[in-house]
C-alpha cells in the first residue's frame, strides 16, 4: 500500500504535506516504532525504528496528531508523569514552554479545551529538549495567535540546530518553517520541494486585462509573449515571464492599451492544491500557473 522514502538531514526542518489519509501519520508511527514496516525500514540517528524504539525516544520528541491525553489526571500530574518517564529533572525548559504558550496546567485534563490539551502535548514533546522532533499536525486546535507563537517557537528550535519532521496541511506554517517539503499522496511521496526555490523562483506570472476586443486579439496574436491562458469575454490574459525577460516584457506591454496589470503570487497552497487536482509530475507542478 505504502511506499514512502525520504531522509532528513541533521538540523533540517522537513515538511510533510498531504491530504487526510495520505499516510503521513502512518509514516510517523513507523518512525516512532509503534508499527513495524511490512517492507523496508525507518532509521533515526542510525537506529532501527522498530528494534531500538526505546533508545530512539531518548533524543526524540513526539507530538501526536490526535490529542488523547490519559484519563483521570490533571495537567500538572501529566507533566510530572511524562517528566518521570523521560527521567527529566531539570524543569527550566518546561517552565519556559508553559510561559511561552501561556498555559496554566493545574486543571483536570477532562475539562480542558482542545487548544489547552494541544499546548500540554507541545510542552511534553519539547520538555526534555530533544535533538529530533516528530510533529504531527502541531497547530490544529490552536487559535491564530498561538499558531503564530508556535511557528516562532519552531523557528527558535531550528536556530538551535534541531532536526524536525513537521507533518501538516496548514500551508503557511510549512512554508514559514520548512527547508524542504515532501508532498505525500496515497502512500507515495509525489513531490519534493526545496522551499527556497519556491521563495526565489524566477518564473513569474502576470495577469492583465486589455481595453477592448481589438486589443485582446492583437495581444493574443503576439508571438513574443508566453501566454498561458486567455479569456476573450473578460479580455483577460495570463502571461508567464522569466525575470531575465522582464524588460522586454514591459517594452511589449507599452505597445498595448491595458486596464490593469498584476503579479499572480505563487503560493505553496496553489501548488499543493493543483497537485491534488491533477495527476502531475514534479516538473509540471513547478511549471504550473493558470487556474
Amino acid at each position, binding site marked *: 500500500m505504502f511506499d514512502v522514502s525520504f531522509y532528513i538531514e541533521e538540523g533540517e526542518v522537513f515538511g510533510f504535506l498531504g491530504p487526510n489519509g495520505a499516510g503521513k501519520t502512518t509514516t510517523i508511527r513507523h518512525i516512532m516504532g509503534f508499527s513495524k514496516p511490512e517492507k523496508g525500514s525507518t532509521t533515526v540517528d542510525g537506529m532501527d525504528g522498530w528494534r531500538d524504539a526505546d533508545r530512539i525516544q531518548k533524543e526524540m520528541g513526539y507530538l*501526536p496528531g490526535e490529542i488523547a491525553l490519559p484519563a483521570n489526571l490533571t495537567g500538572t500530574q501529566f507533566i510530572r508523569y511524562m517528566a518521570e518517564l*523521560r527521567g527529566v529533572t531539570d524543569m527550566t525548559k518546561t517552565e519556559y514552554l508553559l510561559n511561552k504558550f501561556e498555559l496554566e496546567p493545574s486543571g483536570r485534563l477532562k475539562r480542558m479545551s482542545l487548544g489547552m490539551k494541544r499546548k500540554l502535548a507541545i510542552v511534553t514533546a519539547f520538555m526534555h529538549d530533544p535533538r529530533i522532533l516528530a510533529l504531527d499536525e502541531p497547530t490544529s486546535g490552536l487559535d491564530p495567535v498561538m499558531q503564530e507563537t508556535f511557528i516562532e517557537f519552531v523557528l527558535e528550535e531550528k536556530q538551535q540546530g534541531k532536526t524536525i519532521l513537521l507533518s501538516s496541511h496548514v500551508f503557511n506554517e510549512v512554508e514559514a518553517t520548512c527547508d524542504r517539503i515532501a508532498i505525500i499522496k496515497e502512500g507515495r511521496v509525489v513531490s519534493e520541494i526545496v522551499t527556497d526555490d519556491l521563495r526565489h523562483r524566477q518564473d513569474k506570472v502576470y495577469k492583465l486585462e486589455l481595453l477592448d476586443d481589438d486589443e485582446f486579439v492583437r495581444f493574443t496574436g503576439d508571438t513574443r509573449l508566453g501566454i498561458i491562458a486567455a479569456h476573450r469575454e473578460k479580455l483577460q490574459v495570463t502571461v508567464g515571464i522569466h525575470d531575465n525577460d522582464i524588460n522586454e516584457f514591459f517594452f511589449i506591454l507599452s505597445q498595448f492599451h491595458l486596464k490593469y496589470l498584476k503579479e499572480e503570487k505563487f503560493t505553496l497552497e496553489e501548488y499543493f492544491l493543483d497537485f491534488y487536482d491533477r495527476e502531475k509530475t514534479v516538473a509540471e507542478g513547478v511549471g504550473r500557473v493558470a487556474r
Partner: protein
Amino acid sequence: MFSRPVFWQSVRSHYVLWVICTVVLTALLSLISAFHDPSVMSSFMEAFEDTPMAAEAGDQFELFGSLLGIITQTVFGFAGMMIAMVYVVVTANGLVASEVDRGSMAYTLSTPIKRSTVIFTKATYLIASIVLMFVIIGGVGAVTIQIKHHGLWGTTYTADVKAAAKILDRDRAEVAADLTLISEDPQAFSAGARARGLTPMVYSAYLVQAMQRDATAAAAEVLGMPAAELAKDPSPILDDPEAVAAAAGVLKQDPVAFRAQLEEMLAQMEASKAEQAIIETQLTDGLTAAAKHLGLRTAELAADLSLLKDDSGAMAVASEASTMDVLTLDYVITQVMASNEVSADLAVDFDAFAFLMMILGFLLLMLAVSGISFLASCTFNLSKHSLALGAGLPFAFLILNLLSTVNDTLEPLKFFSLMTLFDTERIMRGLLYAPQFVALGVLTVILYVFAIRVFKRKDLPL
C-alpha cells in the same frame, strides 16, 4: 522491567473501581458473617427437612446450612464472582486496549521506556490489585468471623460445655472431648441442660447423639474419610479395628461391646428404614394438626418443637392426628429436638482451612479470568473488540456455570466453564481440589506470558 510512573498512573486511573468492588465484597462477606445465626439456620433447615426439596438437595442441605455454606453461595458464588469480575474485566480493558484505542498510550510509548516494561508493569498492577483485593476481603472476613463466632482460631465451645466445665472445675477442651463427664455428673448435667435451654430429657438425648457424632468423627479420622459420609453409613467402621477402637474410646466403651452395639444398630437401621419413613409422615401430620391447634404455621412450630412438647393439649391433638400414642410421639420429638441441637453445633463449627482455601481458589479463578481479559486487551486495538472477548468470555463462563446447576440435563455445561475449576463443594467436603488450583495457576501464567508477547510484537495504531 518495571516502571514506577507507569504503575502509579495505572493506580490513579483504576483505583476508584477497585475501592468500590473491594468494599462491596468485603461488606458482603462481613455482613453475612456478622448476622449469621447458627441456631436460626438449623431450625430453618429443620423446617425444610421433610419437604421434597430437602430430599432433592440431599446432604447439601447440611453442607450449605453452615456459615461457610452460606458464604460459598453468595460471596464465593454468582453474586461475588459478578462483582469481582466487573473490576477484573473493566480494568484489564482499561489498562491496555482502551489506552491504545483512545491514543493516550502514544505518550507513554514516546518516552525511553521499553514496550515490554510498559506492558509488564501493567500486568503487575492488574495482578497485584486483584491479590490485594482478596487479601483484604479474606482478612476482614476472617476477623469478622472470629469476632462473631470465635470459630477461626482457638476452639469454640458450646454453652453447655462452658457451664459444665465450670461446675466440674475442668478444662473446657477436656469436657468437650469427653461428654461422658457431663452425663455422669448430675450437677454438671443440669447446668449443661440449663445452659442450652433444654429439658433434662431432651438434653440427655442430645448428649447421646453428640457422643455418637464425636465417635463417628474419631472413626472417620482413622479411616480418612469425610465424617458426614460415615454418619450416613457407619458400616465401614466395622472393617477397621482401629476405627472401632477410636470410636469406642470416645464413648468410653469396650471396643468389643461397641462393635456388637454398632452391628445391632446397623441391622436395626436396615430393618426400620420403611418404618422410619412412616414415622416421618406421621410426625408431619401431627405437627400440622398441632400447629393449627396452637394457631401457628407448621414451619414456625417445626422451628421450636418445645412449644408442642410442653403443651399437653397440643400433644393430644398431634397424637390423634399422627396415630401415635403420646409417649411414642414424645420420644420421637425428643430425638428430633436433640438432633436439631447437634446440627446447631455443626453450624457453629467453622472450617477455617476450607475458608482460606476458598479465598485462595477464588483469587486464582479471578487471576485466570484477568489473564483472559488481559490477553484480549493486549491483542485488540479497539476497546469494543477487547471487551467482546475479554468480558464476553468470562461472563459466558459464569452463565454456563449457573446453568449447569439448574438440572441434570444442563450439568454437562460445567465442562465448558472455567468456574468449574473453583469447586467450593469439593473444598467443603475435603475432596481433592489441588489439581484444579494448579491448573488455574498454570493457565494464568500462560495467558499473561502470551499477552505480553503479543503486545510487544504488534502494530499499534497510535
